[in-house]
């Protein structure tokens, strides 16, 4: 029996996630319990889905950027800027739709800047996005005027702590964003074009792909995803913290994409695999707390997980694995 290609692609990540959940459930049996209180779902799995929302949102955009062979270091800073813009507009009394549109437009503008630097000025993606990563928090502080800008608008707060039919809103937001992105990419040729640019930009250009627009577009999508993540984080604490909102989340997002088995060199990508990667890291974080390990070990465990995944994905080892797989396929079982 052969698996469908889509499922075969995400199987290793899914297996990792299931093993991880099983291991945590053995250590702390209450992990999988879900309860309903005040018309809302509670429990560790819901918590993982909810707290993983910012990284999951970032991972969607980051997957596309990495698929073109790029990287976006600025998403954490963009989150801070967009959160600051939203908090500022809402405290100034603008209606919620205008506030949200302004925050999203800010994210798109940041993405546009990155995209222009990468595709028109041909600056290396790491450096191009580093510029906004360094300057972005300064810009966010300029918006909040150095303070943590708090607000009490219930509409904006709903984005972070609200629930629809018992499901926390951030969970709905990232799943909706993921489903929307996947449908647009896979029901049209867009996903294919992005992969073409990532595999060989020159060949794609020769074949008639507008590489420049494609690259700008993925950075704009990444900026929009960062704006959504920034809104969720800001709404969750009902305040815009220019210094700490989204701090180091760009690294978590890149990690999620790498754990999802996407090559940093670009090419074939799977948004679903990245999202499972995001959930794996969040499960590790929650699991370490629940299992009673001191949170200090969090980073060390994360580092080892990355290393193991790197070794498995290494281009040096791939021919070896492929040979073994070919051998297994050759011998009937």
């Amino acid at each position, binding site marked *: 029996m052969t698996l469908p290609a889509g499922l075969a692609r995400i199987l290793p990540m899914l297996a990792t996630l299931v093993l991880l959940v099983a291991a945590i459930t053995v250590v702390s049996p209450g992990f999988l319990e879900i309860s309903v209180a005040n018309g809302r779902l509670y429990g560790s799995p819901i918590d993982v889905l909810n707290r993983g929302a910012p990284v999951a949102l970032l991972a969607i955009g980051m997957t596309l950027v990495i698929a073109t062979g790029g990287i976006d270091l600025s998403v954490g800073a963009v989150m801070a800027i967009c959160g600051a813009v939203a908090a500022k507009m809402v405290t100034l009394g603008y209606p919620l739709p205008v506030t949200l549109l302004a925050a999203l437009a800010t994210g798109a503008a940041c993405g546009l800047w990155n995209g222009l630097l990468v595709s028109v000025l041909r600056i290396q993606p790491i450096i191009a996005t580093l510029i906004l990563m360094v300057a972005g928090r300064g810009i966010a502080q300029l918006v909040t005027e*150095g303070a943590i800008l708090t607000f009490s608008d219930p509409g904006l707060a709903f984005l972070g702590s609200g629930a629809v039919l018992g499901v926390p809103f951030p969970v709905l937001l990232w799943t909706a964003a993921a489903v929307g992105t996947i449908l647009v990419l896979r029901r049209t040729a867009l996903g294919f074009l992005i992969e073409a640019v990532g595999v060989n930009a020159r060949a794609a250009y020769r074949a008639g792909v507008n590489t420049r627009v494609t690259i700008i577009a993925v950075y704009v999508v990444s900026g929009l995803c960062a704006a959504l993540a920034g809104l969720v984080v800001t709404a969750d604490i009902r305040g815009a913290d220019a210094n700490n909102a989204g701090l180091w989340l760009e690294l978590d997002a890149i990690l999620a994409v790498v754990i999802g088995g996407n090559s940093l060199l670009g090419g074939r990508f799977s948004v679903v695999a990245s999202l499972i990667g995001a959930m794996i890291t969040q499960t590790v974080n929650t699991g370490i707390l629940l299992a009673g390990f001191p949170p200090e070990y969090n*980073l060390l465990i994360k*580092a080892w997980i990355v290393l193991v995944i790197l070794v498995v994905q290494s281009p040096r080892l791939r021919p070896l694995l492929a040979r073994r797989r070919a051998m297994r396929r050759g011998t009937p079982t």
Partner: protein
Amino acid sequence: MNARLLPFVVTCGIFVLAYGLAWLQFPAILSTRVIGNLLTDNAYLGIVAVGMTVVILSGGIDLSVGAVIAFSGVFIGVMLRDTGLHPYAVFVLLLLITTLFGLAMGAVIHLLEMPPFIVTLAGMFMARGAAYVLSIDSIPIRHPAIEAIQSAYWLMPGKGRLTLIAGLMLLTVAAVTLLIHRSPFGTRVMAVGGDARTARLLGVDVGRTTVAVYGLSGFCAGLAGVVFAVYTSAGYSLATVGTELDAIAAVVIGGTLLTGGSGFVPGTLVGVLIMGLIQTYIVFDGTLSSWWTKIVIGMLLFGFVALQKGLVQLRSRKGGGRRRARRQSAQGRAAA
């Protein structure tokens, strides 16, 4: 003029111009005291940025250095608190650990052919995690020998103090400058950064060079950790978060090409001093907020990257316009 030195000259020009403008507003800024403090305050950044310069010259990047500095501080603090070792012995042990750590990262990058970005990111998690495991609290570092280092300085004319750690930074810059621009190792690093495949064909041991480069960066990060621990008298696992970005920014502002293979080590020192000058200016002004530092550094980064792009394009155009000719012929074929 040598085109490689042009970014360095521009950087120096900007530093002198910025210092001049600051001097017009605050005449007191031009004194050996301010210059001495500028060097002392940025000593750890200077050392770590020099290591980063070598990594970037070889075409790589090292994101772990900030975490390694924090680990160094905590390690020194814990060792002095819990063992009877003399600080100098602890320093040697620490430098050994961080150098081995760098060598190990270099080996992983070379043997597994993984992007340095993600390998050193794992290294960053590991070093920061190790610091957390050693201690989450800030540990005071007190010892007569360390106090002796802290109070050692050379009185410059004008009562400015050139502290020992500032001197150590200048010495590191000088040593690495000689190593990169006057030794076979430096030539190999430049060759690998310029084009690894060509370097291999020319007989350069790319693997050994890569591993050595990250080892050197690990050593510099450890040395910066010692300097930072002496400077702050404390080890704290949350210290120097984001220092790797400051170091990379200093390297870029210093005129080193981020694609590797071209640059000038002393430029990095000027890059560090420009960043320090922005902070000093903000302190002198008193009304500006510190977040302007980040915005100005971001703008400088953009300016320098754009300048480098312009220079590279100019040079490739001067080089016979070969690529353009090829493109035209390809277009001609396509049209036909």
